[in-house]
Structure formats: C-alpha cells, structure tokens
C-alpha cells in the first residue's frame, strides 16, 4: 500500500517536472518564433519603405512588367541566340542580332552571346585556378598540425579572412581603374576572394588529417615541404578538388554579377537588355545563362561524386 502511494507520488512528481520543463521549452520556442515574426514584419516594412516602388502599388503591375518579356515573334529568341538576321529588324538595337557576331575564321563566327558566356565562364575558371594555386600552400601554413611557424600561421589566417570578407566589387573597382574596366579586373577580384574562401575550407580539411604518415616522414628526416607533399597532400587532394569544383559553381554566378557591374561578359549584356526592355534578347540571354549554370552544376556534382562520394553533398555544417 505505502509502496504504491510512494510510486504514484514519484510518478506524479516526475510528470510535473516533465510538464514544467516542456511548458518552459514551449514558451521559449514560441517566444523565439514570435520575435522572429516581429523582426520579419519590421524588416519587410523597412524594405518596402526604402524601396523606390512599393510592394502593393507595384503588385498589380507585375504582369504588365512581364508582358514586355513576351516577344511578338517567339522565333526571335533563337535568332538572338544564334545571331541570325530577324525579319522584324527595323534598324533598332532590339533586333540587330547579326551585328554582334565574332568572326573567328573566314565566314565562321561565334554568336555574340556564346562569346560573352564564354568570357564569363573563363573568368570563373581562371579566378578559381588563381584561388586554388594560392590557397593550397596557404592552407598548409594555416593548419594547426602542419604549420611551420605559429606566427606565420596567424598572419596567413588573418590575411585569408580579410580576403574573404573584403567586398569583391571594391577590389574590382580598384583594379578597373588600374588595368582598365573589363574581365581582367573581375578575374583579380574573384581570384583574391577565392584564395580566402578556398584557403579556409582547405585548412579545415588539413587539420583533420591522419598524422601518422607525417610522423613517419619526420622520423626519416624529411623537411617541411616533403612532409606536406608526401604525407599531407595525398590525403587531402580529393577533398581539395571537390571544394574547388564547388567554388567553380559559385564563381560562375559571381562572375555573372561582376559582369553586370562592368566586369564584361554576359552579365553586362543582360543588364542592358533588361533595362531597355528587349524581350527576345533577354529571353535568349536568360536561357543561355540558365543552361550554362545548370550544366556546370551538374558536371561539377557528377565529378565531385566520383572524387569523394556522397560526402561531397554535405555542406559545411
């Protein structure tokens, strides 16, 4: 009898404690969500106030805005893409497709938009290469377990942090004034940013390697370079490659945006085309950009899966 009472007392106490705990937790969750909602409404109001056109004023006109996008003749999209003369051409810039041809060899030409897309992709590839080349040695210096000197490690780490956080458009703007506006300034800006971004990911990989090969090499008297080359690099290279491929995906996007602010390439043409309301040209550019980014993403995903398996798809947590 007494034991049963005790038992039920203990159970009740436990149940009470549990209830108190959960109610407190629920209260905090509700408070958190409430605060988030308040912040969301406040920022929405702020963004709407600060904008040139207001959300509810512009909403009914959203479809008007889409209407210029629909070309009168859908074939113009293909003609714009491949620089084929359009019968709608009345001497305006809207339909002057063949003027942009880039002649490579005699009568053989690359359509303008493909050339621009190529520029954008090349900017992304070259800047990723720059990032990779510098990030690899930096990452070995910045890794706690492999660094040749703690002071140097700190310097390199801070330097990479600075490169990562520095707004790319400022670097691009600075170099636009030095090497003239265009893709080279964009390469420098994106390349510098990539050094910081890749360097951080790389040194985090380096810090998680198996140190036994390194000890073995140290035991036979290998110097720092040999230890890094033969004990570090083989372990981390697949992961390095995987992150570099991921970086290529990101850099293609950044390079497009850089183009829109003067870095050359397809971004510039897209911005012009949208601001002038050229429906067919815009659609052709969006289509080309969409397909390119999609293909780059798929190719890089395929290659990453081959290199490091499913692990490649876990984003850094």
């Amino acid at each position, binding site marked *: 009898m007494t034991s049963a009472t005790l038992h039920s007392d203990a159970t009740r106490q436990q149940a009470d404690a549990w209830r108190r705990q959960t109610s407190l937790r629920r209260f905090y969750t509700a408070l958190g969500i409430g605060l*988030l909602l308040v*912040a*969301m409404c406040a*920022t*929405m109001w*702020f*963004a*709407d106030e*600060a*904008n*040139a*056109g*207001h*959300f509810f004023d*512009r909403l009914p006109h*959203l479809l008007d805005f889409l209407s210029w996008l629909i070309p009168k003749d859908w074939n113009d999209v293909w003609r714009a893409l491949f620089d084929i003369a359009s019968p709608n051409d009345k001497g305006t810039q809207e339909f002057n497709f063949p003027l942009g041809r880039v002649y490579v060899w005699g009568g053989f030409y690359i359509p303008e938009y493909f050339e621009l897309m*190529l*520029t954008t992709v*090349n900017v992304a*590839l*070259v800047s990723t*290469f720059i990032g990779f080349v510098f990030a690899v040695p930096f990452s070995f210096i910045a890794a706690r377990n492999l660094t040749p000197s703690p002071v140097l490690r700190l310097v390199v780490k801070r330097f990479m942090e*600075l490169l990562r*956080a*520095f*707004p790319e*458009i*400022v670097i691009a*703007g*600075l170099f*636009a*004034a*030095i*090497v*003239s506006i*265009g*893709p*080279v300034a964009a*390469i420098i800006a994106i390349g510098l940013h990539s050094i910081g971004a890749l360097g951080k990911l790389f040194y985090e990989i380096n810090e998680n390697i198996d140190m036994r090969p390194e000890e073995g090499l140290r035991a036979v008297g290998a110097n720092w370079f040999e230890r890094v080359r033969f004990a570090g690099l083989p372990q981390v290279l697949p992961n390095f490659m995987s992150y570099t491929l991921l970086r290529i995906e990101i850099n293609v*996007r*950044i390079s*497009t*945006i*850089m183009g*829109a*602010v003067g870095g050359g390439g397809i971004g510039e043409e*897209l*911005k012009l085309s*949208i*601001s002038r309301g050229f429906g067919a040209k815009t659609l052709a550019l*969006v289509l080309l*950009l*969409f397909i390119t*980014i*999609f293909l780059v*993403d798929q190719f890089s995903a395929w290659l990453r899966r081959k290199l490091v398996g499913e692990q490649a*798809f876990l*984003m*850094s*947590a």
Partner: protein
Amino acid sequence: MAITVEEIAAIEDRHPQIFRRPAYKRFWPLLLIAGTLLYLGYALWFFSLPQVLRESHWERLPLFLSQWISYDLQPEFRLDQPQITPKYPRFSALGENPNPDWVIQNPDGTFTVQIDGDAKSVTFDKTKATITANGVTVPVALTSGKPVVTGPVPDWVTVHDDEIVAKMGFAGEVRVTVDRVKVRKRFLGWANFVFDTRSPFFGRPYSEVVSLIVSGPELQPGTSNLSLAADNIWNNAQWQHGDVWTKLLQTIVMAFLGTLLGGIVAFPLAFFAARNITPSGILSQVLKRFFDFMRSVDMLIWALFFTRAFGPGPLAGSAAIFFTEIGTLGKTYSEALENIDDKPREGVLSTGANGLLVQRYGVLPEVIPVFISQTLYQWESNTRGATIIGAVGAGGIGLKLWEAMRTNSNWANVFYMVLLTLLVVFIFDNISNFLRRRLSRTLHDYNRLQAERG
C-alpha cells in the same frame, strides 16, 4: 637488412594494384596538369593578358591606396593679380575663409607654403620661386615668359614647356607656371569626419563641442545643441553618415528577409520533395527540378527582374535572395530529410498517429537543428552576397560603393564603407558561427545518445 632483387619482385607480385597500375591511372595527374597549362595559355590569349598588363597603370595603385586614408588640400596662388592671395577650391576640406598655418606671408612680401615643414616647402613672389625638398634648393626664375630652373635639375623635378612640377612623394607636389603656383598638400586621416564645413560646430576642438552641447547657448535658436550636433553628424555632406548607415541596414535586412522567407517557403516544400516522405514520386521530381530552376536562374537575373518590377531598393534585393534561397534551402532541406533515421518515424506511425503528427514527432526533432544550421550558413553567405547584388540596383550599400568608386576620387569614402561592411560581415559571421556551434553540440549530444542506445 637490405632487401634482395627477388624480394622486391615478390613484393611487386603481391601488390600489382600499386606497382603495375594501368597507364591511364598512372598518367592522369600529368594529363591534368598539361591540360591546365594548355587552358591557361588559351586564357592568356582569350583575355589578351600581355596587352592588358602592358597598358595598365600600376603607378596608380599606391596613389589610390594612399587616398583611402588621407586627403589633400590644393591652394592656388595667382601671380598675375596685383595682390597675391591663396585661393582654395570650392568645398575644400578647410571650409570658408581658410587661414592655415602652413601658408605663411613673409614680411618681405613673399609667400612660403610648407608642404612638410621647412624641409619640403616652396617660397615665391611674382618674379621667382624657390622649391626646397630632399635637402636640395631649386630656384626657378619666372621673368622670361616661362619658368626656368637656374642651376641643376634634380630628378624629382620635371621641367615641362610652360610648367615645372616638383613631386614630393606622399606629402604632395608643387606646380609652378609664370602666372600661378599650385600646391597639393596631403594629410593623413579623414577630413571633417564628424562635422562638415557647414556645421556651426566645424573647426572647434572636441572639448569645446562637448561643453557647447552640455551647457552652451543655443547655436541655432529653437533647437537644442545636442540635436543640432546629431543632425549635423547624420547629414554630414562629405561622409553622408546617415545615408551610409541606412544603406548598410538595408543590406543586412535584404540578407535576413530573403533567407528567412526562403526558409519559410522551402520548409513545407522540402517534405514533399524528400523521396522517403513524399506521397508521390512525381511530385518529388517536379519539386526537385523546381528547386534546381530557382537556383540556376541566378541571383543576378532575379535581382535585375525585381529591380525592374519594384524599382531599385531593398525590396528588389530581398525578393532576389528570397527566390534563390527557395532553391538552395529547398535542395539542402530535402537532402537532410532524405538522410534521416527512419526508426522514430516508424515508432510514431505505429501508435496510429496521422500524417502531420508523424512529421512533427517522428521527423522534425531530428532535422530541425540541421535546418537551422543550414539556414544560418546561407544567411551568413547572403550577407556578403547582398553587397554585390546591391551594385546592380537592388539596394543596400553595394550601389553606394559602386557609385563612390566610379568617380575615382572618393576612395576615403569607399574605405569607410568597406570598413563598415567588414565589421558587419565579421559580426554576422561570429553570431552565425556561435549559434551553429551550439546547435552542432546539440546535434552531437543527440547522435551520442542514439549511439549509446544502440
């Protein structure tokens, strides 16, 4: 202990996968390097890099960088007027009626401008000028219709047809013609950072400003000195503190709002896209392709479209980040859902709970930390991305930065904004890192508990 040839052969036989690898496996690193080099050669030609580098102006780099942290004053002295008087450009950093102590009118009627004390200075009247720098004194005669250096010309002085230019490094330069002397003197620091030249507080020492604010008479009748000072700082014409900070807030808001809304929309969609949860395989495929579409139609395209739809401003930027994030977060959320442990779900299902309750108690506790962690990560990267997006008109600090840079003269303002941006990125990185570390600890504990229970 030396191994014999037979032993080596035996080891080779035992491990053929190491010693006799197929040719393509042995040579692919070499091929990769050769391919990269070929590509780089092509890129060199594609961007005509040698020509671009040849035509670039690297000498501008130190000049621009020095402008980030310094400002200059450019007084001009007309010699063809009856009275020599210093003239300053309009909106010079000294305000109206400047009378700086480094411009000295000597008793004998000549003027001396000290560019770096007496060691780098110029003294002149209507007939002659004497430039001193680097321990050398260069006399210039102005009487023969064009400026003539009498004596040897040091290498820091350039003699043009009608002008003599003396460069004095960071400190500035002197330009002399027969009818005017032009001086540029450079100062380290940011001019008029707190009060601009129109402010009644301009040029007063800080102690005086403080005492004016605390107990001084009203400088502008009807407003307290404190609110006047605050208004003057906020509306500083040169540094535009008010505008810069508002734009910075816009950038933060864009990243926050875009990521949050993207998360809210992606959250329910991810359940229908996850292969192990969705009621229909077709729906899953459709949603996944939709996520890919939202991601592949780049943030730039969304930004340009919404800028045209809503006009330039943070609304367009938020909408652009929102649309991109639906894709990115939808993809990562649904991948997280596909990787869950199915046992809690089966357990809840076996009690007869309906579909919604199964998700709430069988799935959510497992994925919520992952979801929040991914969202924070995206928030962090969008805070950086919002800066660039701004430059195409989507609001925020980006456009302001871009406009300040285009003139090539406002590098100090650019640096001010860069410092603020760096500060914001730094703060948000740390907040996001802190929250994610706490979450990953929760995740870690959860995994450990799971492991202990078997």
